[in-house]
């Protein structure tokens, strides 16, 4: 344990995802000891990000306006919605240049053990977007891991009574990974080879 504020900094850093106690301590001392480290700038960016960045009213992607770049773009097709877990998956798919439709960012995957059920994700918003019949295909692009597959199963069950094509990214994606780690070529192929969800 360190004195007061230093320990507080370590504790705060340790609350960030993927940062264990050792890393938190390392970052804290980097901030304290490196003279060139611009704390003011970091603090400003953190404040601004919290102030300005929000979730797109339509798709849940991150944006500084009411609608994200993609939802505002008139060249994007409104007939297809690609469902992903996180905003970073939108970035990964955009890099492939394979997809010209719109997105729905769920904000995670269904994980009962973490207390996350369907109502904690933007699934109701997705259902609302499908109500007027504009959308003819929903591509489920949740992560190729357990929670992602289970979320896809749940979505398929919700969507199967609607009059639209429901597809899932081709299984060329290795199982167990995060979508954001798939390289562009593999992800592009997974898009081309997406299969129809049956049941």
């Amino acid at each position, binding site marked *: 344990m360190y004195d007061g504020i230093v320990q507080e900094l370590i504790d705060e850093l340790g609350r960030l995802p993927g940062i264990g106690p050792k890393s938190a301590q390392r970052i804290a001392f980097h901030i304290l000891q490196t003279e060139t480290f611009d704390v003011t700038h970091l603090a400003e960016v953190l404040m601004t990000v919290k102030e300005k960045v929000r979730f797109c009213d339509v798709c849940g992607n991150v944006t500084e306006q009411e609608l994200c770049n993609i939802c505002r773009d008139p060249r994007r097709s409104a007939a297809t919605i690609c469902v992903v877990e996180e905003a970073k998956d939108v970035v990964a798919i955009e890099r492939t240049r394979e997809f010209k439709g719109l997105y729905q960012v769920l904000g995670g995957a269904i994980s009962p*053990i973490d207390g996350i*059920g369907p109502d904690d994700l933007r699934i109701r918003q997705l259902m609302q977007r499908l109500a007027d019949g504009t959308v003819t295909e929903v591509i489920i692009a949740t992560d190729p891991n357990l929670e992602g597959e*289970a979320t896809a199963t749940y979505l398929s069950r919700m969507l199967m009574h609607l009059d639209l094509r429901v597809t899932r990214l081709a299984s060329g994606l290795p199982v*167990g*990974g995060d979508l954001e780690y798939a390289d562009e070529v593999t992800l592009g192929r997974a898009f081309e080879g997406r299969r129809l969800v049956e049941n």
Partner: protein
Amino acid sequence: MPLYRDEAVVLRTHKLGEADRIVTMLTREHGKVRAVAKGVRRTASKFGARLEPFMVADVQLYEGRSLDIITQAESVGSYGADITTDYGSYTAASAMVEAADKLTEAEASLQQYLLLVGALRSLARREHGASLTLDSYLLRALSIAGWAPSFNDCSVTGAPGPHSAFVVQLGGVVADAVAPPGAPRLDSNTLLLLSSLLTGDWAAADDADERTRSQASGVVAAYTQFHLDRGLRSLEHVDRRTTA
């Protein structure tokens, strides 16, 4: 023993750093183990799906200072894929691994291990309703942990049953003489189903009607939440609808 092998069922995983995961697993001989799987989240990882929840694997671990490190994993039973194609099974399996996580410690419990693996295999094969399988698992896992409920003889006085008053805090059914006023009453079908689930009498359990199943699930949930520290988060998300 810096290097050891065991058979393990994965209970849950946590992201660690850029591409690693901390894998919590219940092993056959070493009890509950938390270990690091390096690089598993990269799509080229050799571990791939083998270290996802509900998977049974033959693992080789290197004993680390705080956490062990997984050096090899060979799949023994890949139940995850079959479980996730049915949403009810997925939510039931989630509640099972969460319960197993809370009921086990570093000491080995072969009984808990075999019970969990058996229940996950049964879910993957759709042998019985997912909700029934979960209820049976919970009753039996709690019994192994020392909290066996009584569904026949009075759990306070031992007076031979049948009794209908059920008091979670007292450990099961109780005789009218000791039942607190207003104690909930269970009908004989529900008690029969609960006994069948506890003993694994599947022929009787599979016959139970929808109403009886749902009443029994309510009892199992209350009994589980009472005994497990802070309860199970998964339980409220379990999808109890029976699938055709």
